[in-house]
């Protein structure tokens, strides 16, 4: 009896703690959402948590005045292209590190790991000079797609995942006379699909929310991405358009939430694979 009571108590406390934690995690989203339907002065009036005069004006203004649709499209196709290319190259590299023995492999892997600690701010200026003078890529999507395409974290992540691919299966394919690249495409990639999917979500998320680098390389307004649009709503020395900012924030989170809810299973499985064997 006492054990049962104890269990109930533990359960009750656990649920209460989880609910409190969820409130902390969810509250900023709720506040964002509620504020996005408020006219500017109401956001600060502190009179009511819920909008007294709910309005869609913030959303329509974002689309009419700031061409938000265009910016969502930019963010979307940059994130999609960058993700597709990176996932492919990372799978390729991860596969090689996981399943082949070749001279210099350990040294190469060490370099790869070390490169993860390089802060981006260190690279910003020289990288920008290169983008402009060597490649002529300023104001194009390329700087957001190519330099990070074979990402160290991604290769590391895929390596952990590929370690579990069966060697027997690969050898069988080799005996059948398949080329190494053919094996990769026809045998390895399909097996690694969940890993690829979760890496894709991580990359898409990173690209979608990327701020510092696009701010530097995307000049003209019609090239801007969503975070740049949000940032440009600050208007010194006047007032920041917090009303539009909240609407924009809601819109920027929405696609990520959809992606997450549909692919949650893969994401969790993927991060798991990437971290355990670190």
């Amino acid at each position, binding site marked *: 009896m006492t054990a049962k009571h104890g269990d109930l108590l533990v359960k009750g406390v656990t649920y209460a703690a989880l609910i409190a934690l969820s409130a902390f995690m969810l509250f900023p989203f709720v506040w964002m959402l509620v504020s996005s339907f408020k006219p500017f002065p109401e956001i600060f009036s502190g009179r009511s948590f819920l909008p007294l005069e709910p309005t869609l004006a913030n959303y329509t203004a974002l689309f009419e005045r700031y061409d938000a649709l265009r910016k969502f499209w930019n963010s979307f196709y940059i994130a999609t292209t960058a993700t597709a290319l990176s996932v492919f190259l990372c799978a390729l590299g991860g596969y090689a590190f996981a399943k082949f023995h070749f001279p210099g492999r350990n040294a190469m892997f060490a370099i790869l790991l070390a490169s993860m600690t390089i802060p981006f701010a260190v690279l910003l200026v020289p990288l*920008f000079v290169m983008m402009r*003078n060597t490649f002529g890529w300023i104001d194009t999507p390329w700087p957001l797609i190519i330099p990070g395409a074979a990402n160290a974290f991604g290769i590391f992540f895929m390596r952990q995942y590929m370690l579990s691919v069966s060697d027997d299966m690969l050898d069988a394919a080799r005996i059948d006379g398949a080329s190494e690249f053919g094996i990769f495409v026809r045998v390895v990639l399909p097996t690694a699909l969940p890993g690829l999917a979760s890496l894709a979500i991580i990359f898409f998320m990173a690209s979608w929310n990327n701020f510092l680098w696009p701010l*530097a390389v995307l000049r*003209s*307004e019609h090239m801007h991405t969503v975070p740049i649009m949000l940032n440009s709503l600050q208007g*010194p*020395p*006047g*007032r920041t358009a917090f009303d539009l900012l909240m609407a924009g924030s809601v819109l920027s989170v929405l696609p990520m939430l959809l992606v997450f809810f549909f692919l949650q299973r893969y994401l969790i499985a993927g991060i798991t694979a990437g971290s355990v064997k670190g």
Partner: protein
Amino acid sequence: MNKTVTKVLVTLLALALIGAAAAQTPADALEPNPDLHATLEIWTWQGSGLDAQAADADFAEYYPNIQLNYVLRPTPDTYQQIQLAAVAGGGLPDVSNIEDSHLRQFLELGILYDITDRVEPYMPFMNEFKWRHVEGDGRYYGMPTDSGPVALFYRRDVFEQAGVDPEAIQTWADYYDAAQLIMAETGVPMWQQATARNNGRLFEILMWQRGLGYVDEDGNVLLDRDEGILEILEFMGRFWDEGLALDTEEWTDSWYRNFDEPNVATHPGAVWMGTFFKGWIAPDAVGKWGVMRLPAWEAGGSQASNDGGSSLVIFEQSNQKEAAWAYVEFHLGRTASQVDMFIASDTFPSLETAYEHPYFAEPDPYYGGQMVRELFTEIVQEIPEAGIYNVDYQEMNSLMSEQIQRFAIGQVSASEALAAAAREIRSRTGRR
């Protein structure tokens, strides 16, 4: 009426008309020029006056074949973009508006186009102190867009309730006495000044008023060498110590609301603050605000200062310099353009011929019919030169603000704060 008096009056009127007619800039006599073909890229920010595009319809009539393409960004982003483009050696626009506080950094990079010969005819017509910000080795690299004459905005209702006569405030000592009286009578603090998040702007305004600055004329650090500067900081400190200042960060919602409530009696600020009062800080406070000159530090001393202001530059890289100059000249050198821009967005002209426009002689209903615009045209012409804006401004402002913050929360004394800021500035900038 006495004939002689009439004659004198007529003569005076004629002279005045001639005088008014004589005050014409070269741009006022421009002829339309359809031969200039270009698409100009212009970088500026929201609220800069240029973005209101008030003069652009006229411009299109004079220069039908010049297209204007504005890029609006928050100012820090604009400067970062200019720096990256300068490092990369390309990607700059044709024209950019730049705050005077940041302009010299770009001037010294050698990326600005020398427009000395083009602006020389305009020098007599524009605020004298502005030219200092665009000058390097006797050459000129920019043309003033707007000035930031500073005055003391005050709440008439609070002053009346406390029985304080604004006219009686002649010096900062009077101001301090009034602050105590107002606090005693109404409980309203005199000004809003953040402590731990102070941005150094008021300190700069007060230095500028006395012709003082971070550095002297030779570029040597002045902060720890001038009694006047110490006096300024200690003066600010008294308001914090004695609860006469409200601790609110600038440009936050509470800061705005305190002006409207009112939770604060005065605001020493630049002319463009009026735009914000009218626009959205306190649009309903018609007749509640008054404006007067800054109190002097000693009787008869300077009562004018500057905060902010910007200038247009053309980049050396631009291959459409003729068209770019046509834009700059038409918007900044032409009286009608400057008046249009002032009416549209309250950016205060540096072009003095604009002050003769009847709009400047009209009373402003928002200030209870006070002749505020005229007051600012007087102040702007009295602004002293001061060593505030220069190539190291951002670094100096950041170092000094930190020390003001430490002083405001009582970590250091005023003289310690100034000594520390001066020491840091010397070691970082190599100044003496």
